[in-house]
């Protein structure tokens, strides 16, 4: 944990050294919520019945979706981006030459981006609350295990993309594909039940579908964790299966990179 903490701290210090960038990043988040508020207010009467079961306010429904999308974007792209930058500058080579385990290194490299995305998501939700979104803030700790599972279900996809970077210098199409499917079929802007039958089958294989249902039930309808046990179970299944695939792919990529000499080739 100490090593992960040190990597996260270094990431934070480097990011906050761009002071104007940090201010602008949060300002744009807050400003970005305002048009969403007006559009969702206009659609409230039409959408209220459509979103039934995942809250009753379309504005809150959408901001929860947008915040979750911010989070999974970080989990998908943090590692491949860190590996891509790190291999081109020699940072990864320097870190791998220290007595630090690869899982620790990966957790530390992704840690800052994921925590920063969580902070950004929280800011969006706070701004939305100020504008009148009905969020059950007293349920924020209850939603933490759901968020943890959402992160754990998506991080391995980032690990697979990072393995691709290590072996072939490109993350490949996987993170983009998962992000696109999550955006359009994961229930970010509309509930998955309105998706036509043939396509809805795909949404059943998108982890965010279950994550968003669970988050909305807890945060927008105030339900306890027991009410989302099915979603939690499915997310845990995704996390377990993808973790094994991610670990195996990364190990294979590392072995290949060491053999082919691409690990420290920049």
């Amino acid at each position, binding site marked *: 944990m*100490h*090593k992960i*903490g*040190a*990597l996260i*701290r*270094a990431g934070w*210090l*480097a990011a906050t*050294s*761009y002071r104007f960038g940090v201010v602008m990043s949060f300002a744009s988040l807050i400003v970005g919520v305002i048009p969403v508020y007006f559009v969702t207010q206009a659609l409230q009467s039409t959408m209220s019945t459509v979103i039934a079961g995942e809250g009753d306010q379309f504005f809150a429904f959408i901001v929860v979706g947008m915040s979750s999308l911010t989070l999974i974007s970080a989990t998908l792209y943090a590692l491949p981006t860190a590996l891509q930058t790190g291999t*081109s*500058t*020699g*940072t990864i*080579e*320097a*870190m*791998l*030459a*220290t*007595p*630090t385990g690869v899982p620790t290194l990966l957790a530390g490299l992704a840690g800052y981006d994921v925590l920063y995305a969580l902070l950004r998501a929280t800011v969006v939700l706070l701004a939305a609350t100020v504008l009148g979104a009905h969020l059950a803030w007293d349920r924020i700790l209850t939603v933490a295990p759901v968020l943890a599972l959402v992160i754990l279900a998506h991080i391995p996809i980032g690990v697979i993309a990072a393995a691709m970077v290590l072996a072939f210098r490109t993350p490949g199409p996987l993170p983009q594909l998962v992000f696109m499917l999550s955006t359009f079929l994961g229930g970010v802007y509309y509930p998955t039940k309105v998706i036509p039958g043939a396509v809805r089958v795909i949404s059943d294989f998108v982890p965010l579908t279950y994550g968003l249902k669970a988050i909305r039930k807890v945060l927008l309808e105030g339900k306890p964790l027991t009410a989302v046990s099915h979603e939690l179970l499915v997310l845990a299944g995704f996390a377990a299966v993808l973790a094994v695939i991610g670990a195996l792919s990364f190990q294979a990529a590392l*072995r290949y990179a*060491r*053999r*082919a*000499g691409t*690990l*420290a080739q*920049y």
Partner: protein
Amino acid sequence: MTSVASAGVTLSSSTASSTAVSLRGLSKSFAKRRGWRELIRRPFHSEVVPALREVTCDIRSGEFFGLLGANGAGKTTLFKMLATLVTPDEGTAIICGHDVRRDPDRVRRVLAPVIADERSLNWRISARENMRLYAALNGLRGAHASERVDELLRLVELTDAVDRQVAGFSSGMKQRLLVARTLLANPQVLLLDEPTRSLDPLSARAFRRFLREDVAIRHGCTVLLATHSADEAFDLCDRVGVLHKGRLIAVGATSELASIVAEERYSIWIQADGPTAVKALEATRLAGRIESPADEPNGWVRVDLEIPGGINAAADVVAALARANVRVARCERLALSLADLLERTLHHYAPNANA
């Protein structure tokens, strides 16, 4: 003891207990990169390019060992294998008793490569924060970590700049910080891959002094230095190995190797015309190969020549010329280029190495 290095030949006189790095028949080949047309025409065909061939060598504890070679000679590949970043195809590399293939975790605890690329530092944070990060990655914690960071920043003379962003550092400061970062691991073996390549001559000289006096002598590290510069290797190292096309063609004490391949070439300024100067030099019977004289102003010529026997023989040549009433203005040893050194080493040790 200078000797030819080849597979299976033990070169060093060092005993096993004092050996920091032991290489036996270390080989590595990489797949040749093929163009699209070739890839489509013969998709399953593969070709390999040998990067290292049967490198065998021992490096003693506390030794400053130089590895000389042109681009593509295999220096970096060898270093990356020692640092466990590249897996050897054949042979063994034992670092302080640990095999790089079987026990890479232990190797990483005793050996540290100085990644010479300045970009491997985090430029947006301070020198101290860079050091704190790597202190943590090397398992140092709390007050001990802070003390070690401060101690090393003092050693590399960056005390006044500890809290400044690395982005504002000069190349020399960044190189010193890279070394300090590596020393956090308290390594027994340090790998330096062309550490002075981006430094101006003055900074390079100061940096070499720092490596020799502070890192090697005071810190007691076994240092392996890969370099293009023959002068740098001869200036710093106790022994030098010469890599050529992946083969270690010679290993020897720096003084000995230098006397054989480096200290024989001199320039002498003589007041005479070209043919007379050459005749005068031939008459000394001490000169080896004499090159065509080059005219200098005011009736002087400069003659480049070989003087077997090093500096004492050069003094004898000057004295002989003086006895023959030939005026000599200057006699100096020629700096040896890497190309000359390789040519001479190949000629001397491995005349068939290009085959």
